[in-house]
């Protein structure tokens, strides 16, 4: 049924719909209201989960790994500094193949101390072995958490997943969200019943000390699972469309790219703004498109190559910076498109750091910039900081 709710409320609702059994959460702006909503639902009996009030995010993830080894479906949520504190345990959950699902309400990492959104926190965790998906709106936050459990707990995958909603811009923004009935979700998402869990009749040591002779092969199996997850996300997306009508059957959602001269690759809430800007440009006869990269891990290399076959000038908008060559997504997109390097131009745009608002006007400027590159065939700068106070960008 349709309801008006914030992104955080949608995340908490998804946990309830997924019949989560163990929650361990620690407050941090802007994630906190997820923890509060969960505590309220548990207290009112709306959720029949055990809620562990841990004393740190590090302990939150540790507790859930323990709980998952017993066979319980687990859930937590965090942001920024909390996610960074969890870093050690993120590797642990992935290596232990424990399918924890965690919404991350993305927020800048200090200093400078900043409670607003950017993707520096989540990009810092891209090598931990977690699946990472970005949400454009609160509906996606709810839907992707449910799909995430189905993929994460798939016996061939058994990898944890991060569902990323932008701090404040989504977490504290009320939007219409269609909330499926829990019985419908029970049909889509079966109870968690892992093969690998504590069994008193066959006592085992979980974790173990693996020497150089086999450690690499265990890590290779992790890598294979992440590769296999691409197909699993598409299958689970198709099944979700059949059950609830909303289409998540692609890792990259192409918006008006079929005949586009240029396209902008973008993740998160700003994708919506970029789509509106693209529509405006289309009204003025400019053929531009938006490629919303929903699934960052596993990285959709194949879908991006197909995009590069049709669109020869591609921009990548990052709300992160890697202190190397541009933003995180930009680097990985150029890497993926390397086979098409001679025909495709890829430009990186960095913006929206520390909660800086990104407007439709700025996206139109980026599209104009990309169109100029497409026409001239030359690119003066590979990476540009958008709306940086350097005197060049005028605010209208």
């Amino acid at each position, binding site marked *: 049924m349709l309801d008006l709710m914030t992104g955080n409320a949608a995340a908490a609702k998804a946990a309830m719909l997924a019949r989560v059994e*163990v929650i361990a959460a620690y407050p941090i702006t802007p994630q906190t209201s997820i923890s509060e909503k969960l505590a309220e639902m548990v207290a009112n009996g709306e959720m029949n989960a*055990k809620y562990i009030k*841990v004393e740190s995010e*590090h302990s939150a993830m540790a507790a859930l790994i323990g*709980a998952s080894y017993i066979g319980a479906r*687990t859930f937590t949520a965090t942001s920024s500094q909390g996610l960074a504190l969890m870093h050690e345990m993120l590797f642990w959950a992935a290596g232990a193949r424990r399918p924890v699902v965690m919404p991350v309400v993305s927020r800048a990492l200090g200093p400078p101390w900043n409670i607003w959104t950017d993707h520096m926190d989540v990009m810092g965790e891209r090598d931990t072995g977690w699946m990472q998906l970005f949400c454009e709106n609160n509906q996606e936050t709810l839907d992707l958490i449910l799909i995430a459990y189905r993929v994460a707990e798939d016996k061939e995958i058994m990898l944890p997943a991060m569902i990323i909603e932008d701090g404040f811009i989504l977490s504290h923004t009320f939007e219409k969200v269609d909330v499926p009935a829990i019985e419908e979700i029970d049909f889509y998402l079966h109870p968690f019943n892992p093969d690998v869990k504590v069994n*008193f009749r066959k*006592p*085992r040591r979980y974790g173990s*000390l693996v020497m150089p002779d086999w450690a690499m092969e265990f890590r290779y199996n992790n890598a294979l699972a992440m590769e296999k997850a691409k197909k699993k996300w598409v299958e689970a997306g198709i099944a979700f469309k059949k059950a609830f009508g909303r289409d998540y059957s692609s890792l990259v959602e192409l918006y008006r790219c079929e005949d586009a001269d240029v396209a902008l690759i973008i993740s998160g809430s700003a994708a919506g703004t970029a789509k509106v800007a693209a529509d405006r440009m289309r009204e003025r006869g400019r053929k531009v498109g938006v490629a919303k990269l929903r699934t960052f891990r596993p990285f959709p290399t194949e879908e991006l190559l197909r995009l590069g076959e049709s669109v020869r000038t591609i921009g990548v908008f990052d709300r992160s910076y890697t202190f190397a060559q541009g933003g995180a997504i930009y680097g990985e997109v150029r890497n993926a498109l390397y086979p098409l390097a001679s025909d495709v131009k890829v430009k990186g745009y960095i913006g929206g750091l520390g909660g800086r608002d990104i407007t439709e006007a700025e996206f139109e400027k980026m599209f104009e910039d990309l169109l100029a590159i497409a026409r001239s065939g030359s690119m003066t700068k590979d990476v540009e900081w958008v709306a940086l106070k350097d005197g060049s960008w005028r605010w209208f």
Partner: protein
Amino acid sequence: MPRLTVPKEELVSKGHSGCAGCGATLLARMCLKALGPKTVINSPACCWSVVQGVWPRAALKVPVIDNAFECTGAVSSGIRAALDAKGIEDVTVVGWAGDGGTVDIGLQALSGAIDRRTDFIYIMYDNEAYMNTGIQCSGCTPLYAWTNTTPGGKNQEWKQVSKKPIMEMLIPNGIAYGATVSIAYPEDLVAKVKKAKSIRGTKFIHALSSCPPGWKIPSSKSVEVARLATQTGIFPLYEYENGAYVLSKDVKTKPVEEYLMSQGRFKHLTPAMIAEVQRRVDEDYAALKAKCKGAGASG
């Protein structure tokens, strides 16, 4: 007729990789005799992570979940919550960690678990330094002791302060039961671990666990030196429950010198240093006795 004074069942396998004479392996063997097979242990990085052996082998005959260094308290809460969520009862959840993993890096998670009144037994095997990484000073390293990070040297840089009073720190935090145990008194140990099993809430067991390489003693003296620790009052055996302290064995009969001089890590102690250790031990022992009344678990 000869009879066994501790349960016969063995839940530790032969062939584990403990050093010859390791106190912590004997301790695990005794604790598991009291805990029994329906036990799930979680353990951080510590000697026991290596003692259990290399994959695909494992030395304990109960389920063990490895965790990161800081997490024993938190993982224990997670395991108990999941067992409750799944309606699985009659399982003893045990957090099994070393001294550094408890009083230093793991203190926050332990304090959190106690504050949450998680129902589990936390057993700290105290070999009084970070032994797995090669004998570095920890919060439980005793006054004046040598370790590789308190090597003495020209500036007399031995351990400058006494052991962290972990029991006194955790009692006000809210443990339901606390006890000190030693590998030299296995019957007392088994009785206390069984008692801890019967109590709900967080139970803390502080176990003295001698370490031949770390204490610089012959491996054959592992039990004897642990016994001396209690006989000199350095490691008294007692229990705490609901505000009441109970002295398990009032056997403080020997001077601390006998304990100190039995170990290479103390052989540099001067008479003045020994006297200071004796003074502190007498003071602490008297304070403990003042708090103690009544009979304990082992009667």
